[in-house]
């Protein structure tokens, strides 16, 4: 019995492989399992290759898993296009379409001998039972139910809901195709059975969603009443969610004519007193930078979501990467500090988004949420979230006393100046991108510029003490350490669990507040560390380099960095941890040599 199974399936666009993945995830959730599904596509709109990875577990999941336990290839050409995104190993069961006419011993996976390889006449079975090849994905679901014990009941129940409108005939055809899959599996048992353990039972009130929808819902919960943006993969679903729901809360969504107008209208709405948000991905972030600087100098609260994809330029719109960090931290000219928050999974996207609004409001600043394609488009089963435990912060409004002799940009001890809102009598001022005096009037004085820069940066000092925006796992005094942010944090968390089970004394630091760098937190964390890894999906190792700008890392801390799309596997990180430990022991042994 396994507590965890990872499925990877690929086919061409019309094969319905993603829809099969969704049915599998829904069925598993209905049976009380934890599940997570990521999708990956070629960039074609229709047709082209498409794939999904579904991980199902009896335990809470932190990442979409490493090597596949089960690989399903409806054709080899499309499967191979995903390369290391769908890694097959010696413990993988490979199921493929017999119509590909490839012999099981000749499957085109070089350098790997899977646990078992099974050719199944999937399209033939679909045609025979449902009368159409389009039922291939249903046959696959039947095979999975038969061999791995997931969804025997729940898949059919799901069909009944999903296909209700299509009529009895369609439903019956799908049932026949599904049962045919089960039958095939029963007639051809696996050499080594691979069934999943029973779940702990279905929990009511469980949620299932992806990072983009979670982000938008959290924003509305936080009081966001205005969204404007421009469609861009993979962030568009945030705008779609607002377009469907924000009106119900007295808000508005504007699909702007371009990325610049998208952030511009959000800045306008914030100036007018509303909590506002825009969302984009890499190229859009590049376009928005001038306006980000404007929001900083005009000291207007604003939340900008950047769902990272492969870059530079158009890069890889449908694949995740963590390479927008420098752009998020440093783009827009001038001396600016702009907080960056990063969720690590769909569940904490809620907390991080609420926090982003709170920081934006508290510090009257743009805040960037750096998500990525994986979190944004992966579906997860989640435990219910108790929203009543979240605090909502609103900007410091000018009081009646402030308004008697109002200075919008008054230099205060905290650096935060009470803000007025159009409509408030006595509160009129000039917001501007040009440097300004405390009353908002334009200035070219070097002295004023110095004082204003100092105020605008000083106000972020409390962020250096927000330890709640970091998490540490493992033994706090461990000599071995990992640091990871965003979606890679979940992979590292699992790597640390495995490594600790294997006896390694290792810990993990996950920053949710990625910038500004809270130097004290890192100094404290690294105090015990002699060897470590900063793991990230960026070829340059942007986070490692950013850290080094602010923190003297111990000499033994290395960068483990790679370009986007290909996921990290917990197992490969554990391997490197073992190497680091060996090095550490070796160097310590060296030190213990008696001195001549």
């Amino acid at each position, binding site marked *: 019995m396994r507590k965890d199974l990872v499925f990877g399936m690929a086919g061409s666009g019309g094969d319905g492989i993603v829809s099969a993945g969704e049915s599998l995830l*829904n069925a598993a959730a209905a049976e009380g399992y934890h599940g997570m599904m990521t999708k990956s596509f070629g960039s074609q709109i229709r047709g082209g290759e498409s794939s999904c990875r579904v991980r199902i577990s009896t335990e809470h999941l932190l990442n979409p898993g490493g090597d596949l336990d089960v690989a399903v290839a409806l054709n080899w050409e499309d499967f191979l296009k995903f390369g290391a995104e769908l890694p097959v190993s010696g413990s993988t069961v490979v199921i493929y379409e017999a119509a590909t006419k490839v012999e099981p011993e000749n499957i085109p996976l070089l350098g790997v001998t899977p646990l078992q390889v099974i050719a199944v006449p999937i399209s033939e079975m679909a045609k025979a039972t449902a009368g159409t090849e389009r039922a291939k994905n249903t046959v696959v679901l039947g095979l999975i139910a038969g061999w791995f014990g997931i969804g025997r009941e729940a898949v059919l129940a799901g069909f009944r809901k999903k296909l209700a409108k299509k009529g009895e005939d369609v439903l019956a055809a799908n049932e026949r195709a599904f049962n045919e899959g089960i039958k095939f599996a029963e007639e051809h048992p696996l050499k080594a059975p691979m069934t999943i353990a029973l779940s702990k039972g279905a929990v009511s009130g469980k949620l299932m969603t992806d990072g983009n929808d979670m982000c938008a*819902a959290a924003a509305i919960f936080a009081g966001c009443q205005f969204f404007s943006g421009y469609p861009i993969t993979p962030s568009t679903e945030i705008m779609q969610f607002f377009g469907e729901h924000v009106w119900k809360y007295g808000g508005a969504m504007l699909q702007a004519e371009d990325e610049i107008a998208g952030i*511009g209208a959000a800045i*306008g709405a914030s*100036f*007018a007193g509303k909590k506002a948000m825009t969302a984009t991905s890499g190229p859009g972030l590049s376009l928005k930078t001038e306006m980000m600087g404007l929001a900083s100098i005009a000291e207007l609260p604003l939340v900008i979501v950047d769902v990272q994809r492969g870059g530079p330029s158009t890069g890889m719109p449908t694949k995740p990467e963590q390479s927008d960090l420098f752009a998020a931290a440093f783009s827009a000219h001038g001396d600016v500090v702009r907080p960056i928050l990063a969720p690590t999974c769909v569940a904490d996207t809620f907390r991080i988004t609420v926090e982003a609004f709170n920081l934006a409001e508290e510090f009257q600043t743009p805040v960037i949420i750096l998500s990525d394609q994986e979190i944004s488009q992966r579906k997860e089963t989640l435990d219910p979230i108790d929203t009543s435990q979240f605090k909502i912060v609103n900007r410091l409004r000018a009081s009646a006393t402030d308004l008697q002799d109002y200075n919008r940009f008054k230099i205060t001890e905290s650096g935060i100046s009470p803000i007025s809102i159009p409509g408030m009598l006595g509160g009129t001022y*000039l917001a501007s*991108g*040009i440097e300004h005096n405390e009353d908002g009037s334009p200035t070219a004085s070097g002295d004023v510029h110095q004082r204003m820069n100092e105020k605008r940066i000083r106000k972020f000092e409390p962020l250096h003490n927000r330890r709640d925006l970091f998490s540490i796992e493992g033994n706090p005094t461990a000599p071995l350490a990992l640091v990871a942010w965003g979606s890679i944090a979940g992979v590292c968390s699992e790597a640390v669990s495995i490594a600790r089970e294997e006896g390694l004394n290792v810990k993990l630091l996950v920053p949710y507040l990625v910038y500004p760098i809270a130097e004290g937190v890192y100094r404290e964390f690294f105090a015990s560390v002699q060897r470590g890894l900063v793991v990230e999906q960026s070829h340059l190792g942007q986070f490692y380099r950013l850290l080094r700008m602010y923190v003297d890392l111990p000499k033994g801390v290395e960068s483990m960095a790679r370009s986007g799309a290909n996921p990290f596997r917990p197992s490969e990180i554990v391997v490197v941890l073992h190497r680091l430990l060996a090095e550490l022991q070796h160097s310590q042994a060296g030190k213990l040599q008696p001195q001549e």
Partner: protein
Amino acid sequence: MSETTTPTATPEYVFLPKDYKSDLKPIWCPGCGDFSVVQAIYRALAAIGRAPHETAFISGIGCSSRIPGYTTAYGFNSVHGRSLPIAQGIKLANPDLLVLAAGGDGDGFSIGGGHVPHLVRRNMDITYIVMDNQIYGLTKGQLSPTSPKGRMTCTSKYGSLEEPVNPLQYVLGYGANFVAQGSAADLIGMTAIIEEAIRFPGFAFVNIQSPCVTYGEESQQIKGLKAITEPLAAIGHDSSDRMKAMEIAQYYGQKFHTGVLYRNPNPPPTYESQVKERQAALSQGALPKEQILDLFIKR
């Protein structure tokens, strides 16, 4: 969507143009047409009588974009070419505000040109005033999108090779419901046009020939403009006739037509009024926002 409690002008109090004038001293050159434009705006606002704190005035970058700072309204002197997106965000966030946007021809028809058609088609109740001087003044005399072909400037040493933008024809072509043109030399006429534009229920565009006394050419100074001025009232133009307005607009740059070129006698509903309707319709029976995650419950 409005949540601000706005004290309104008391019935006894009548606003005067000086109530809209700030203490800030304009950076404009002596004799600049923009002095007269800001005067017209003070007068138009006073005639309408909305309190300064209920007014938001947004601009981009350029000499003329300094204008919000010279008023007592809530001002936003933003970045080059982006007054209109910001103005739209403000209008949607609080439709009760009187929203004005202003800037120069470079701000509106070069760097910010992509925003104009979209505000026009959304028809938000925003008045957009362009101070058109056919030159980049703030950067000291470069070619602008409305500079006539052949114009010699420091960036067109041998004369420009491109046709100018025709702001009137563009905005009419985009489908605007209110298009007018005024002259900085005619304070009374300009005030009347701006007041009518602000009162118009929907997007209104006012192009004002506001000469640059420092870098502008002789033909574009007050004197030169007077020679080609043709008030629309004098030629008996019917401002409800859109096709005729398009025809007249062709002469931009050759003749100087002042007055209301086009005013839709049946203005369509504004964007923000439709938003209000949608908010009212959809908010009934909606999940409280504290329960929004219930949308994700697997049933």
